């Protein structure tokens, strides 16, 4: 099992190298001169050139690339022009915000989509099946930033149920001491229930907007998978053996139907990290998504590269996690080479 994990990890290295090269090339061919931006609005041609030399931007691209990779090996993602901080520090500070949001969105999507898909599969053609199809179509049809705006309009502006969409926590709440970086969990650990509630309140709308995006593929996959499993031979055997309906549906049906769902979870999680970029903009969420948007708008090379490289690493780790989860739930995978 350890060997298998190590092998999966090694096989991901070439794609990582590819990502580093491609992001470097693309971000350096973006229009806009970061030196001019960095030198400020009152810069003269000389001060821009001076900034360029200081940042190493006057060197030929291959030289810049070698220097970049060298830094990367030491965990140095460069320094952001915007914040003046090392990119790694920025990302590590902002990552928990994005993670917390994505995780809540994923939990919301799973909690809604999996029972919906199962229920629809067990009663095909019933009203719940139509509800499932309708929800899936609607959730897939609206772009997540649009859903987000509608939710804000209805629940914040019209009904006033939701807090103002300006980040993770309203300013009059104390920041919980950082343990996991998740405000809701940290506040609970600190015993500060008011802050935990406030942080959760801030999370609900963005998590639902983001989660709706993941709902469609999850519900559809669950439904299709459960229908497929319920039609398979071993379910007929279980029926012929007189097992109770509950055992047939759960122990025999659901567990088998879950296998492909687990498989796409990794993909959906990384989709969500990508979709974060827009949702974080809409909700003023201080995560890595809004950081990336800012970086692109200001040609902040180091920040863009850092963001993409980190996403690639996250993606690889997520898929590794899914592979391990798969090995736990599906005995057949443990023996595959």
């Amino acid at each position, binding site marked *: 099992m350890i060997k298998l994990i190590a092998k999966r990890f090694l096989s991901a290295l070439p794609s990582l190298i590819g990502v580093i090269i491609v992001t470097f090339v693309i971000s350096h061919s973006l229009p806009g001169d970061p030196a001019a931006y960095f030198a400020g609005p009152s810069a003269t041609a000389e001060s821009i050139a001076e900034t360029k030399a200081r940042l190493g931007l006057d060197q030929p691209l291959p030289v810049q690339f070698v220097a970049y990779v060298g830094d990367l090996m030491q965990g140095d993602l460069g320094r952001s022009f915007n914040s003046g901080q090392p990119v790694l520090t920025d990302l590590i500070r902002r990552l928990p915000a994005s993670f917390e949001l994505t995780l809540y969105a994923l939990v919301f999507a799973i909690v809604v989509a999996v029972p919906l898909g199962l229920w629809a599969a067990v009663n095909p053609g019933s009203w719940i099946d139509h509800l499932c199809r309708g929800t899936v179509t609607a959730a897939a049809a609206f772009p997540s930033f649009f859903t987000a705006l509608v939710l804000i309009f209805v629940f914040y502006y019209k009904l006033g149920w939701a807090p103002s969409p300006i980040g993770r926590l309203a300013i009059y709440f104390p920041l919980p001491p950082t343990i996991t970086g998740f405000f809701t969990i940290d506040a609970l650990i600190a015993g500060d229930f008011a802050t935990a509630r406030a942080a959760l309140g801030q999370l609900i709308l963005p998590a639902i907007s983001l989660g709706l995006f993941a709902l469609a593929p999850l519900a559809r996959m669950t439904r299709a998978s459960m229908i497929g499993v319920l039609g398979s031979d071993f379910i*007929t*055997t279980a*029926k012929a*053996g*007189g097992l109770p309906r509950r055992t047939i549906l759960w122990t025999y049906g659901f*567990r*088998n139907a879950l296998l492909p769902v687990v498989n796409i979870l990794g993909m959906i999680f990384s989709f969500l990290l990508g979709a974060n970029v827009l949702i974080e903009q809409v909700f003023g969420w201080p995560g890595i998504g809004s950081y990336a948007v800012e970086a692109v708008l200001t040609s902040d090379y180091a920040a863009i590269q850092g963001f993409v490289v980190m996403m690639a690493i996250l993606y690889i780790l997520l898929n590794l996690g899914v592979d391990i989860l798969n090995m736990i739930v599906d005995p057949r995978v443990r023996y595959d080479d």
Partner: protein
Amino acid sequence: MTPLLDIQNLSVDFATRDGTVHALENVSFQLARGETMGLVGESGSGKSVSAYAVMRLLGGSARVRADRMISGGVDLLTATDAEVAALRGKRMTMIFQNARSALNPIRPIGQQIADVLRVHRAMPRRAAKQAAIAALAEVRIPDPERRYHAYPFELSGGMCQRVMIALAFASEPELLIADEPTTGLDVTTQAVIMDLIREKSSQRRMSTILITHDLTLAAEYCDRFAVMHAGHVVEQGTTADIFERAAHPYTGLLMKATPHGASNLSDLAAIPGSLPDLRRDLPPCRFVHRCAHSAPACAAALPRVPLEPSHEVSCHMPWKVSA
């Protein structure tokens, strides 16, 4: 003595996108306790549909009608789903052709047997485990304690079929339907599996329906036969009736298409034509277009001709079996 299974004029239609498939029409047979009946015929003749209808395992698209359908004193036509579910396993059970796909791929085989035991014999978890290991040993699976934790993909096809048999017998049913239990296994394994089924069922005085297209194999194990063609039972009788005094032309052709010990390939004859399209309106005798002996009389309603107490044929021209 009342038969264990009594089926009279069972008809099954399937509603499909391309029209109604008349899968079974007026199928009748009886099965006594302890008896083994072979259900034979080419693929698509309705053998499995009959079995699934008896188990009430046909899906929602099936329309089942019958004059009588009684298993172990329970009327399968009027029983509720819950009542039939209670019969399954306990009263009647089924073994399938592809044992590996018929077992849950991600559940240890021993646990699958224990699941059945816990339901039907109301065993607690630990006792069910011990009984499942004993059941594995009974079908002569080596090292049953270790195999208890094995998954189907870790076992050979023959071993999986043994597990299926252990699973089927775990609940001690009165009726076993074996749907092509040895297809896909090599010849020696076939004999081992069939001996195992015979041994277990005679120990418990169980009735068995053996669905197969392997007549040579079936002749060794069955007391009686029902021959099916295109959703009809065309002939039924004792093994001797069928093999020595076949009265239906189709039975005769089926015999000639079956290899015997001393026959050459050139002695084998293919049955002309193919099964009629069951979606269309069918003539009373569904074999008429393939039959060398068809006569104008064959257009009349299909009779059921008793030849002997044990032997019955559905044909206007019995005994015309080409020699």
